[in-house]
């Protein structure tokens, strides 16, 4: 007899997706991650648009990671037209991007992951007993959001990061305000590390074949931008060669393509950054990494949660350093003139959930070709493999327990299945 176990809608992930696990008397027959949200076609909508117009559209792919989409698209466009930003502008782009990182990690860890471990169905149910944790989540999220607001000029869908630099820069006083609040938030991030160090990483999904991909950070500082991709098997490739090494395939049960490296699934995200670049961490984050190294396991997707906690500390410290560097060079010219020429550019950055690819071709001032690959699309294949591993261990248990564990494995990847639709149904 075949028994389907279905999670129609995975709660507490971003977007709509489902899990289908089919078991029989002999064991697990089939596991599918069903992506039921429609595909986005953002590449198509920007074709033939003026480059600046297209750059205003890309951040709208996702209101949560709008800075990531905007900045990756801007870098791809600048590479296409042959422009390199000044170092101080690049620092401020890093800072804006870090706003996304802090906001996203705080929400994921406290509001999406923590309820599972504390036995609650949602964060609202936790609020009476774990008010402090919810308040910490919001404080951390808000400082990330404030960075985005000050540098992006809008809370969502930033317009301020433009070709050549920024439309305008925050004032010196605003930078100082951010620095003060980041310093106040640092102990909260350290508490997050302590809290998440106690949470179980499920042995059932131990996968020694796991391969991780991350950006090889430019200038030797753990971070977001780079010109090469590092793979945990020791291979490196320039971002321009991404299509040779990140191979997308259509799968029947999903609107989203699955991605493969050397014919196998791979992972991107916080744990992939740590696996590939931990030697570049510094400060308190480095100390915490050394202290908790055993929890940052390359072969367990649940380690992604703890890696995000370490990164919360790192990115707060990094943001403070970037502000110090900025203020030391103050005043800073907000942008340089750019000349829009024909060309092709690829940018791959580290979004909160992992590698984000933008490839743009510019012709006669317009977008002639666009290709976007999101981190969640890259993770789908390995996510499915780990749900299968969980199912193979628990297929004879209570189906509700299996459903929860399968969902937890998916949530560990912090997937953003689709950020493009939100509707109310009555």
């Amino acid at each position, binding site marked *: 007899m075949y028994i389907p176990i279905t999670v129609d809608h995975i709660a507490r992930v971003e977007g709509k997706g489902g899990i289908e696990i089919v078991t029989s008397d002999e064991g697990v027959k089939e596991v599918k991650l069903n992506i039921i949200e429609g595909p986005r076609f953002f590449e198509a909508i920007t074709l033939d648009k003026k480059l600046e117009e297209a750059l205003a559209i890309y951040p709208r792919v996702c*209101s949560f990671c709008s800075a990531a989409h905007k900045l990756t698209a801007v870098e791809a466009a600048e590479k296409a037209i042959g422009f390199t930003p000044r170092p101080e502008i690049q620092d401020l782009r890093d800072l804006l991007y870090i706003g996304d990182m802090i906001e996203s990690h705080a929400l994921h860890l406290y509001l999406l992951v923590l309820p599972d471990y504390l036995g609650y169905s949602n964060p609202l149910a936790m609020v009476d007993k774990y008010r402090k944790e919810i*308040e910490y989540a919001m404080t951390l999220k*808000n400082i990330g959001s404030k960075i985005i607001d000050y540098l992006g000029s809008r809370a969502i869908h930033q317009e301020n990061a433009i070709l050549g630099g920024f439309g305008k820069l925050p004032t010196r006083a605003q930078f100082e305000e951010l620095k003060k609040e980041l310093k106040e938030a640092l102990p909260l991030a350290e508490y997050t590390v302590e809290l998440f160090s106690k949470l179980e990483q499920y042995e059932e999904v131990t996968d020694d074949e796991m391969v991780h991909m991350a950006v090889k950070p430019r200038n030797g500082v753990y971070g977001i931008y780079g010109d090469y991709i590092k793979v945990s098997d020791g291979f490196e490739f320039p971002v321009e060669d991404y299509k040779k090494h990140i191979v997308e395939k259509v799968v029947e049960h999903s609107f989203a393509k699955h991605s493969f490296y050397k014919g196998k699934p791979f992972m991107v995200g916080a744990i992939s950054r740590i696996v590939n670049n931990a030697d570049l961490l510094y400060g308190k984050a480095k100390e915490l990494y050394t202290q908790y190294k055993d929890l940052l396991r390359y072969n367990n997707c649940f380690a992604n949660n703890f890696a995000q906690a370490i990164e919360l500390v790192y990115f707060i410290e990094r943001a403070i350093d970037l502000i110090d560097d900025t203020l030391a060079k103050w005043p800073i010219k907000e942008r340089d003139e750019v000349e829009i020429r024909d060309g092709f550019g690829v940018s791959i950055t580290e979004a909160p959930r992992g590698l984000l690819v933008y490839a743009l071709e510019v012709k006669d001032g317009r977008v002639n070709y666009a290709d976007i690959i999101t981190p969640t699309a890259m993770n789908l294949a390995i996510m499915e493999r780990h749900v299968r591993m969980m199912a193979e261990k628990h297929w004879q248990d209570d189906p509700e327990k299996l459903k929860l564990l399968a969902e937890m494995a998916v949530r560990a990847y912090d997937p953003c299945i689709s950020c*493009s639709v939100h509707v109310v149904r*009555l």
Partner: protein
Amino acid sequence: MSTLILALGNELMKDDGVGLKVGRILADKGYNVVEIGTDIFRLQRYYNGEEKIIIVDAILTDKYKPGEMIHLKGEEVFEKLKAEIRSAHFMGAIDGLKLLMALDERLAKAEIHFVGIVAKEIGLGTELSEEIKSNIPNIIKVIENIVG
């Protein structure tokens, strides 16, 4: 009574962008508007103790025609929408609002309104359907009346 208008939606998804577009018109008229997009938690950063919150968003329903509006107030918002109001993100906007209300006594006491505009089509595109476009002046009037 001080009022904050929250504009929800995604303007790249045709009628899903109506909340944002209505919000911008109201902002131009001087009302206190925050574009939330699909992240209700942004409310916390912009909330300054306003006594009235008006959420403007697109809805999908067969019960009304495209362009028509529903207006819910107080407990009705939570009762009628419950989990039905969905953002593209991890929590419904209403669940998110409840969480923020649990954290902020002032927000818990605020008068909550929901203005839902019936969408004709949610799909890739930046244009609103004619039915919605032609009703925008009326939608604005209704919201201005709620502001009082």
